[in-house]
């Protein structure tokens, strides 16, 4: 089992979600993060003093899938999250040793 973690632009979430759903992926976990990278945050002004918000809002999508699905999932994410502009984000892949479904106690593939 692998965990695929994608850092994407917030307004791309819906497309990514739909792409994954079409692959038959039934679950994912999403969170709000702040990204720091080539894409710069902007300067704001508050009563005459400027300040730079270095971080830009991003969405982190985490999906745990069976090994054989990994390439498809990555392909979908790369396609759906792309605008071609700086700041589109990253996809990281790593392995997971085991998974459990809390409701049933099922383990491994059956859990996801």
């Amino acid at each position, binding site marked *: 089992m692998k965990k695929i973690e994608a850092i994407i632009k917030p307004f791309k979430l819906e497309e990514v979600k739909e792409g994954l759903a079409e692959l038959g992926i039934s679950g994912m976990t999403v969170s*709000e993060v702040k990204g720091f990278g080539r894409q710069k945050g902007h300067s704001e002004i508050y009563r005459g003093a400027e300040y730079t918000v270095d971080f*830009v809002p991003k969405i982190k999508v985490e999906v745990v899938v069976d090994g054989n699905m990994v390439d498809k999932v990555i392909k979908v994410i790369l396609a759906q999250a792309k605008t071609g502009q700086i700041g589109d984000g990253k996809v990281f892949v790593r392995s997971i040793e085991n998974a459990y479904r809390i409701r049933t106690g099922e383990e491994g593939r059956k859990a996801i």
Partner: protein
Amino acid sequence: MKKILRKIPLLIGILLLLPLLAWGADEVPTITGNADAIKAVQTNADYVWTLVAAALVFFMQAGFAMVETGFTRAKNAVNILMKNLMDFSMGSIFYWAVGFGLMFGATTTGWFGTSGFFLSDFSPGGDPWVLAFWMFQVVFAATAATIVSGAMAERTKFISYLIYSAVVSGLIYPIFGSWAWGGLFHGGGWLEGLGFIDFAGSTVVHSIGGWVALAGAIVLGPRIGKYTKDGKVRAIPGHNLPLAALGVFILWLGWFGFNPGSTTAANKDIAMIFVNTNLAAAAGCILAMVTSWLRFKKFDVGMSLNGALAGLVAITSPCATVTPLSSLIIGAIAGILVVLAVLFFDRIKVDDPVGAISVHGVCGAWGTLSAGIFNIGGTSAKIIGVQLLGIGTAFVWAFTTAFVMFKLIDLTVGLRVSPEEELEGLDYGEHGARAYPDFQIVSATTFAAGSGSSANEGAWSSATAPATN
């Protein structure tokens, strides 16, 4: 009614400035002296009431600001606040310079006034009634202007806003106003001449504002993401409903200045106007809730809040000339009407984030018509005909001039912000600021689904290449 005041001799003028000294210990009171003093006291009361009412109407600016901010997204909150702040500020200056003269100045043509610009009717030591009257009128003018900002929220350039706001309070509103209300001061308009009833301005203020808003929303087009690619309506929920509710309470309060204050005199008439105003608002609120419940099986808060405003807008015209029972009926119908109107405008793809067109345009028209139908002194085809003429004229005048104005602005400075700025929020683009920097903001729409919407935004985003987000 007030004209008589200006004929009071100088003696009385002095009496008024020094109201108590007039009866010094050594002075023997006389009958005529007493009669003059009584008039002076009543005049003082008229000033106090008119100006207290003006203060209440002023406070409606806060109400509009909170309603509009609450019903839109967090990323545009600063922009909405700035608009509401500026339309009152700009409106005050333009109405002082131009609008008041056009609306209430002496007129030869009957189409607009040509005197009294820059408050030139007042001279130090002279009768200050023009000042009290101006104060009451300027808060009305600003109301008309501020209505528009709600319908055009979340996508209008700030500089274009400043321009149209000045035009609305300096030209569009006062010229129509001169037709219906000019005679309240030095003017005299053709509509009032025909017997048009619009006591506190369902048409003069609200419908005018509403139809300008309609023109604006049409020229602008809907916000990105409001419709799916197959044309279905998507909800873009307002970000702070407690503020919106507070705004409605403030507006309701302000209406107790708006309607009864339109007597510009401290007299017993204000009692019925208070009661009528309140009953119409209550009925509008309840009926909008019931209607929303029948349609959606939920007690919709946005509709209920709009329902209260709908009742208030509707009763504005007839408030002095219908019975309390009629007011209740007028408000109730407005409450139903506003729900249907919001759904209608959504369906025909006029995107009005706060429902301003439905509340002020549609219910303003209904209220004006109802003033004819429920007239306490009886109605007639003629009365209703004049009301319809007024309603129609307001629509044609406001919609046409506003449409042209918005098109002109669009062709010159541009009316709408770039899609990038719209997606990111106008607060950063126009004001370099955020409304809530200490809170974690998540757009409601980020986690919401809407079939086909992705394609919609996707299509946009690949076409226009957003640099941010």
